[in-house]
C-alpha cells in the first residue's frame, strides 16, 4: 500500500493542466505581450544608451532575467490559484477524501503549475528571439535552473494558496514580494552597476542567485558563482518542501 498511486497523481495533474488549457489563449498572449513590451521599453529605448553589459548587448543581457521574471510570477500565481480555488469552493473535499498521500497531492498540483510556467518560460525564450539574437552556452544547466526554479516557486505558490484566506492575500505576496524582488534582483542590470553598499544588500535577495545562475547558463557571465546559485536554489527548494511537509502534517488550513 506504500507505492505511489500513479493513477491518482495522473488524474489530478491532467485535470489541472486541462484547467490551464481552457484559458490557454490568455496564458500565452499575456506573457508574449509583456515580454514584447519589456523589449520595447528596456531593450530599444534604454538599451540604446546602455550598449553593453559585461560584453553582452543589453537586449540579450535581459533575456534570462525576463524569463525568470515570467517563471517566478507564473509559478506562484498558477500554483496558489490551483490550490486556493478548490479550498474556496469546497471541492477540496474530494482531494482530501481520496486515497491519496500528501506527496501525491503535491506532485499533482505543483507538477501541473510548474509545467505550465515552464511552457510559458519557453514561449518567452522564443519570443525574445524575435527581438534579439542570443546564445545558450550551457543548455543542460539552463534546463536544470529552469526546472528547479519552476518547481521551487510553484511550491511557494502552493504554500501561499493554502495560507491565503481571501483573494486579496492571494495577490499580496506576488505583488508585494515576488515582483519587487525580481525587479531588484538583477533582471535588468548587473549588480556590478550598483554602489558597493547596495551590492551587499542585494545579495540578501534570493532572486539575485536565480537570475545570476540562469544568466550564466546563457552567456557564461554571472554576479555570483553558478555553484552558489545552484546551492541557493536547492536550499530554497528544501525550505519550501519542509514547509509543505509541515502543512500536511499539521493539517494547517486544510484539515481542521
Amino acid at each position, binding site marked *: 500500500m506504500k507505492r505511489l498511486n500513479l493513477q491518482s497523481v495522473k488524474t489530478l495533474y491532467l485535470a489541472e493542466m486541462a484547467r490551464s488549457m481552457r484559458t490557454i489563449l490568455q496564458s500565452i498572449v499575456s506573457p508574449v505581450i509583456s515580454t514584447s513590451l519589456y523589449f520595447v521599453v528596456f531593450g530599444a529605448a534604454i538599451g540604446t544608451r546602455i550598449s553593453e553589459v559585461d560584453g553582452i548587448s543589453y537586449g540579450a543581457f535581459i533575456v534570462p532575467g525576463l524569463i525568470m521574471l515570467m517563471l517566478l510570477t507564473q509559478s506562484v500565481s498558477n500554483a496558489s490559484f490551483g490550490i486556493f480555488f478548490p479550498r474556496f469552493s469546497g471541492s477540496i*473535499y474530494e482531494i482530501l477524501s481520496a*486515497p491519496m498521500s500528501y506527496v501525491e497531492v503535491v506532485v499533482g498540483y505543483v507538477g501541473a503549475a510548474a509545467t505550465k510556467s515552464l511552457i510559458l518560460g519557453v514561449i518567452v525564450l522564443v519570443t525574445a528571439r524575435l527581438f534579439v539574437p542570443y546564445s545558450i552556452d550551457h543548455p543542460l544547466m539552463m534546463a536544470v535552473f529552469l526546472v528547479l526554479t519552476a518547481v521551487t516557486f510553484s511550491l511557494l505558490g502552493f504554500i501561499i494558496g493554502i495560507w491565503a484566506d481571501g483573494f486579496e492575500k492571494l495577490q499580496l505576496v506576488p505583488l508585494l514580494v515576488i515582483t519587487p524582488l525580481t525587479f531588484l534582483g538583477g533582471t535588468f542590470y548587473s549588480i556590478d552597476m550598483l554602489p558597493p553598499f547596495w551590492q551587499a544588500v542585494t545579495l540578501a535577495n534570493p532572486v539575485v542567485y536565480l537570475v545570476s545562475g540562469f544568466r550564466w547558463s546563457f552567456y557564461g557571465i554571472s554576479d555570483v558563482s553558478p555553484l552558489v546559485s545552484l546551492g541557493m536554489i536547492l536550499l530554497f527548494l528544501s525550505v519550501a518542501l519542509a514547509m509543505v511537509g509541515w502543512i500536511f502534517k499539521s493539517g494547517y488550513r486544510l484539515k481542521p
Partner: protein
Amino acid sequence: MIRVEGLSKTFSDGFQALVDVDLTIQRGEIFALLGPNGAGKTTLISVICGLVNASRGRVLVDGHDNVRDYRAARSLIGLVPQELTNEAFTTVWDTVSFSRGLFGKPKDPAHIEQVLRSLTLWEKRNSRLLELSGGMKRRVLIAKALSHAPQVLFLDEPTAGVDVELRREMWEVVRGLRDQGVTIILTTHYIEEAEEMADRIGVIRRGEIVLVENTHALMHKLGSKELTLQVDEPLEALPESLAGHGLALADEGHALVYSYDAARQEGGSTISGLLADLEAVGVRVKDLHTRQSSLEDIFVSLVQERRSP
C-alpha cells in the same frame, strides 16, 4: 462495516463538536444520523471520511483504520457533500471520470455510463455543470461519489433545501443504491426523511449520540397514536358510558379524540370496543382519521427527558 470508537473532536477555537462517540454501522443498511443544525453530524462524517482530524478515538472502515491505513479505508468510501460550486466549466462526464481517477481506479467508461444512467444523467453527460439545475447538480455529486464503486456512501443532507418532488426522487435514488448492496449513511435534520428512509436512526445532539435504534422499534416504543372521530351531532358532554375510554372532546363537540399507544391498546380499551360503545349510545361517526406521532415529537420528548434532572 464502520466502527467509530470513542471519537472526540475539539476544534482549535475550543468548540467541542464530538464527545466520545461510539457508533457501529452495519453492512447494507441505511443509517440516518438525525440532529438539529450544529449537532455534529457533518463533523462526524468529515472525520470518518478523512476531512477532519480526530482529537481522540478511532474509526475502522471494514477493519481498516482510517488514519494508519487510510488508502484502504478511503477507497471503500464515497462522500456526497452538502452542496458546493464545482468547476462550473467541466462537463458531467469529465468531472465524474475525474473522481474515479482520483481514487486510483483505471478508466471504465462502462461503469461511468451505468452510474450516469442510474441517476438519469446520461442525457446530460456532455453538459457543463453550470448549465444544470440544482437537482441535477446534486445528482452529479452522487455520481462522482459512486464513480469508484464505493461500498459505503455518505450523504450529507442530501435533500436540504430541495423541493418535495426532488426529495422523493432522491429517496428513490438512495433506495436503489441500497438494493445494489451499498451501505448508506445519511445525515438529515428532517425527521420525516429519517423515518421514511432509514433502517436505523442515530440521534445526535451537541456532539453526543443520544440514541441509536431501529426505526420501527423507535416508533413503536415512543410513538403514541391518536384517533380523531368526527361526529354527526355535536356533543355537549361525553356520555357516561364512554368514560372508560379516556376520550376528549374537541372542536366544540364535533370531534372526539382517542389517544392510545401499542401498549395500552392491549389493555382494557380497544378501538372496536370504543366503536361499539359509541353505537350503543347512538353517537354516529361521520369520519375518522389517525395520527402517529412523528419522530419530531419523539425527538422533542427525548431532548426534554434528558434536560429534566
